[in-house]
């Protein structure tokens, strides 16, 4: 066998092949991008049509003019001459999907959990990396071991326990457990091990700085990149958490955005499709906007999570 037959013609059509391959890949990527974006586009388009139009013609690809009216129905802010059935629809939607209240509740829960998660995880990670003590490696092994336990496993006992403590319909069982986030601690420990010089702690001790002050004024500013990444993920995870919130919050006034969406989904009469679409749009939009602003950090954070394993 000659060398030529083994390796082919030197550079035969090399460039053409690369370009063809790139074009194919580009086409596939465009199709996947469309699959990701089109449902959301259709959702937004349909939330600008009214119920009458949507029942006659549900397949719309361009915006309508009823966004304002749908919004008025959702806010239960109808003109006095509105029909009785429309008023019934508006009351039903307004009770289930009170936008302002939902955003407020979700913001409180997601904001508090994020603060607690990053602060206490940084603190635990600091304690595990800076100090040497007997149970150090045992504690770290424990944190790694419990990292993967699913919430579902303990939720039956959790809810029963919260009933006995009278903490149902309270934000405490949703916020306080955020202090213990094993996966975040794991991430922060590996970050500190790679980029936090322990000499700094010793230097601050020599200068007479207390241990907690060293943590607050030196360690936390140095860990900012790790804290930022984990804060974004914690916020998103808690904003989206339907499972835990739905089992603790039974009161309508305390409902968060995911709970409201599930309520709208469960309607079986007096449905207004336009308002339905508007509700889903309102539940998706804030997080999508925040995502596109912070996307670079988020993608980098996901990649980092992959590398460490």
């Amino acid at each position, binding site marked *: 066998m000659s060398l030529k037959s083994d390796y082919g013609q030197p550079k035969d059509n090399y460039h053409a092949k690369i370009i063809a391959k*790139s074009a194919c890949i580009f086409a596939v990527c465009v199709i996947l991008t469309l699959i990701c974006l089109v449902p959301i586009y259709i959702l937004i388009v349909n939330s600008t049509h009214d119920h009458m139009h949507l029942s006659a*013609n549900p397949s719309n690809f361009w915006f309508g003019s009823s966004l304002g009216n749908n919004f008025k129905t959702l806010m239960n802010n109808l003109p006095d001459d509105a029909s009785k059935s429309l008023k019934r629809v508006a009351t039903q939607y307004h009770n289930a999907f009170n936008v302002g209240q939902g955003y407020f509740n979700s913001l409180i829960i997601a904001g508090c959990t994020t603060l607690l998660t990053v602060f206490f995880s940084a603190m635990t990670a600091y304690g595990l990396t800076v100090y040497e003590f007997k149970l150090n490696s045992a504690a770290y092994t424990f944190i790694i071991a419990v990292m993967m336990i699913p919430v579902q496993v303990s939720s039956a006992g959790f809810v*029963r326990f919260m009933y006995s403590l009278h903490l149902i319909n309270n934000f405490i069982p949703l916020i306080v457990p955020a202090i213990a986030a094993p996966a975040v601690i794991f991430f922060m420990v590996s970050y500190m091990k790679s980029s936090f010089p322990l000499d700094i702690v010793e230097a601050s001790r020599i200068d007479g700085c207390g241990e907690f002050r060293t943590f607050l004024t030196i360690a936390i500013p140095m860990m900012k990149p790790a804290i930022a990444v984990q804060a974004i993920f914690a916020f998103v995870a808690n904003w989206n958490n339907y499972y835990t919130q739905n089992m603790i919050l039974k009161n309508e006034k305390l409902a968060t955005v995911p709970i409201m969406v599930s309520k709208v*989904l469960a309607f079986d009469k007096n449905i207004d499709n336009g308002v339905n679409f508007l509700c889903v749009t309102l539940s998706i939009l804030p997080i999508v906007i925040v995502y596109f602003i912070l996307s670079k950090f988020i993608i980098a954070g996901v990649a980092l999570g992959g590398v460490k394993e």
Partner: protein
Amino acid sequence: MASAAQRRIKAISYAKYGYMFIAPFFLVYCFFQVWPLIYTFILSFKGNQAANADWVGFDNYSTILFGRGSAAGAAATHEEFARALGNTFILWFGNFIPQILLSLLLAVWFTDAKVKLPGKGFFKIVMYMPNIITAASVAALYVNLFGDSKYYFINATLMKLGMAEPIQFIADPTNAKIMVMFIQTWLWFGNTMIMLMSGIMGINPSLFEAADIDGANSGQQFFKITLPLLQPIMVYTLVTSMIGGLQMFDIPYLFHNGAQFSKHLETVAVYIYYNFNKGTVEQASYGYAGAASIIIFAITAVLGSITFYMNRDKDAIAKKKQRKKAEKQYKAKMKQGGLTL
């Protein structure tokens, strides 16, 4: 030379601060996680509904696993749990296979230095986007687009294009399962792709260059270099996805018509949730929920220890062994030296 202050600091024990720093985590974890887990374990040995205070031993386990419990309707309960376990497995398998294939393909393409792809960053951002959206909203979005009658977007569009009858995307068990698999893949392929990409980028590029020079085509490079070196991260993805699959809740629970979740989409997580969340304590079946939770916990523990075993730091262990060996040799030498002296 260490200064006097440095020496004094070295002499102080800082161990107590270590305990103080990690104390909040352990207190909160024990109160909100460990105790509820133990409590779930206890509940799994207690009765259901009105009999929730009675000790029933392994009755709940034998009911849901084999349908042989003493309670009325034990066979039906077992059937429901078995169906839920089956659904969980089918739904997980049906979303994992397409997801990993698609993610692997995209990750290889995106990391291929020879392919000139404009807008790579944009593609990555858009493909990760579904993962960030509230799962409850995603379910609502798909229910509102794929509704069963001709009054919903997809069916209306398909009928415009000439289809005669609307497709039952939600009420039909097979179609609904395929829809949930599709939605789960839609949600997770971007995340898996980015994880695999960072794994591929961790591979030494000179390996690919050498393969190129030796005339390996991209298929050979993929199967002989990328895939073997990607094995640890693939195992990690597989196990985390399996554990995630056991927790699959939001989409199967919310992808339904009307007020009640679809029985043909009931997963183990839905089963647990439905049983302990049926109204008041007297109406809920904490026993069955607890037993199902403990079964899931056992499965997770097995899967988790597999990853733990696979991911342990092999270099560190090898180094430790080497160091011990060297120490032994050194000691033996010293002994010999001592004797000759």
